[in-house]
């Protein structure tokens, strides 16, 4: 018998945690009450958020917030750490295919200023190194490399460059200038094949000329060779195929979770937990196998809620398609506070949610996957995918969230917004969300409430 799920505060989680323990909840080694991340880790933003009240959500949060511990433990166990920068789902698949290698996503430090409410000082350090507020908040990553308080210095750093965020390229170059050597691999801007070129199908329904796929494959071969050198064992096709199958297992879980969460009459999982879950697809939060377990539990919880006809929001909640991740997690709560729910997302890594082809040589499959990256294609391509998914999930409105200073989404919001309006006729609103959006909450609330009111008026 499943109860009525709720979105609860951290204070309420204290009671809920005791309740779940009393019910015999079995926790993993990284388990424990959420509050400890505030008391011990300084993650004070948690005091301002609302969470799903399930044991599965608790495990998700604990998994996310203990990544630093996991990386230090890996280092202590003499595992090899690969920092896969500006890579949304390709190099980690390769790295986890090698023995004794753990990949992580240093760019993930962009959420530290939010989670720690600027108290880690990472932005100040970045500013002092010439990366001021005109850059994307991911500049916090450089601060994290300086303080070494959030992850160990990796044994190898990779970074894609080319058709990626200009800001990030500049930030990563600054990092290299600070003495952290980077293996750069190039990703070209994805283009449609010319009539005389052989067209290759990519995940997500896109196409690219064969020469682009071959080029990206050659770049990834360099990365593979470097990982092989690092681990001391050649990274063969068999291991890569196994790595791809494991990644696809996670992607399938996420795909089912997303479909359930976005299409159920009553939303079974809050927007915030869904955002965190989707992020796991990129980098597995430094433990691929555990990521699968965590997401599997979340899927089970969502499935049970849907079968029981219960949800964290009422059936009347307005169905919103969300474009781009937010720098301040609190804004995901705000959508629901205003009467909305997430029904479809395009968080800039939609390709990492698609299955990697398993019927191709693994390096070609990975090259195709890398080229399907939304950031490697045009804004119109992103809009096409958003339009398709918004239609599939029955979205009633589109919210485009800009990241201050991020060059990959400074102007594309207008392109996506115009295409969505003209093709689907849905109302669109753009918001800009800095790492701490408290001062903007009234204006953000007005925009989101107005979007909700607009949809409700249409319904009537």
């Amino acid at each position: 018998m499943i109860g009525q799920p709720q979105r609860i505060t951290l204070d309420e989680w204290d009671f809920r945690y005791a309740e779940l323990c009393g019910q015999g909840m079995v926790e993993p080694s990284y388990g424990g009450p959420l509050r400890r991340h505030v008391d011990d880790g300084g993650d004070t933003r948690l005091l301002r958020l609302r969470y799903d009240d399930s044991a599965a959500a608790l495990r998700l949060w604990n998994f996310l917030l203990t990544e630093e511990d996991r990386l230090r433990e890996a280092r202590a166990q003499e595992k090899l750490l690969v920092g896969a920068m500006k890579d949304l789902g390709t190099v980690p698949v390769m790295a986890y295919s090698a023995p004794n290698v753990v990949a992580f996503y240093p760019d993930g430090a962009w959420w530290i200023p939010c989670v720690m409410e600027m108290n880690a000082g990472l932005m100040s350090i970045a500013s002092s190194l010439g990366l001021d507020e005109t850059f994307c908040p991911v500049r916090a990553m450089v601060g994290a490399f300086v303080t070494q308080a959030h992850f160990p210095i990796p044994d190898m750093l990779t970074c894609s460059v080319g058709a990626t965020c200009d800001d990030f390229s500049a930030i990563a170059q600054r990092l290299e200038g600070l003495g952290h050597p980077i293996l750069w691999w190039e990703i070209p801007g994805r283009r449609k094949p010319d009539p005389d070129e052989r067209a290759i199908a990519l995940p997500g329904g896109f196409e690219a000329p064969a020469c682009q796929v071959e080029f990206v494959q050659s770049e990834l071969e360099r990365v593979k060779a470097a990982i092989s050198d690092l681990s001391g064992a050649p990274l063969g096709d068999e291991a890569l195929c196994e790595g791809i199958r494991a990644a696809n297992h996670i992607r399938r879980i996420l795909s089912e979770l997303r479909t359930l969460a976005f299409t159920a009459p009553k939303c079974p999982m809050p927007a915030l937990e869904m955002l965190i879950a989707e992020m796991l697809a990129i980098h597995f939060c430094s433990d691929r196998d555990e990521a699968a377990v965590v997401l599997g539990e979340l899927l089970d919880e969502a499935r049970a809620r849907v079968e029981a006809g219960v949800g964290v929001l009422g059936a009347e909640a307005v169905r919103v398609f969300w474009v781009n991740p937010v720098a301040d997690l609190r804004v995901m709560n705000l959508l629901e506070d205003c009467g909305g729910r997430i029904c479809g997302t395009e968080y800039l890594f939609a390709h990492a949610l698609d299955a990697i082809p398993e019927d191709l040589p693994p390096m070609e499959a990975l090259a195709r996957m890398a080229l399907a990256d939304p950031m490697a294609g045009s804004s119109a391509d992103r809009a096409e995918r958003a339009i398709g998914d918004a239609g599939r999930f029955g979205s009633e409105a589109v919210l485009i969230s800009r990241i201050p200073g991020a060059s990959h989404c400074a102007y594309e919001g207008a392109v996506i917004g115009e295409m969505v309006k003209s093709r689907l006729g849905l109302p669109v609103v753009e918001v800009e969300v800095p790492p701490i959006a408290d001062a903007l909450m009234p204006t953000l609330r007005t925009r989101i409430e107005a979007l909700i009111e607009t949809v409700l008026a249409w319904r009537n």
Partner: protein
Amino acid sequence: MVSVGVDAGSRAIKIVLLDTGSREVVASGIVAQGVGCNDLANDLLRDLMERSGLGPGDVTRVVATGYARNMIDFADTTVTEITCHARGVHRVAPNAATVVEIGGQDSKLLRLGPGGSVRDFSMNDRCAAGTGRFLEVVADRLGVALDGLGPMAARSQRPASISSTCIVFAETEIIGLLSTGTSPDDIVAGVQNSIAIRIAAMAGRGVVAPVVFTGGVAIVPGMDRALESALGCPVSIAPNPQFTGALGAAIMAAA
């Protein structure tokens, strides 16, 4: 019996009383925004009610809108100013397809659907350079009253080009223009054009006529012409433009 619409904006609080039977406006009033927004709104409402011969028992419902809508504790509910301006403008200009609303600290562009519903909207609430605040800064810098800006702009022979995208830097630019002998009339006209161009940029390519201009800035003479020039189509000013938000709120309270 009356329904009440309260528009608690960033610069002023506006209230409209609407007869729930005839749907005619019974009274309206405005007071400058300040510390104690709720008390200011309460005092204004009490004054309007007394002058209209009404008592507390005559109020059916109160809807608050505007930036400070959540501070109005006597409101039954809140609705965003986007929805309220759309309803208010539709009431006074039923054919309006596009609404430009420029207030003290933000500006909005609304595309209307049937019955004054909002089809889509854009909003600038991050940059004061496209809002009434810009005009206040200019008036202050030039030492003239706000209502003196219109005649000044009308006298302009060659509107100055204001290139700064930030109100703080624009003020510096204005000082520079004054020091080089640019006439205050041309500066005021340049600032009006600058605001209008920002609105046009927000509108993009999809401005559908008829366009109705509302909000506090609509009462500043010359702004409508600047908007017409920037948008490339006729612009009409809503009757009592400062009150369309409160009117829309009162209409929603009566619904």
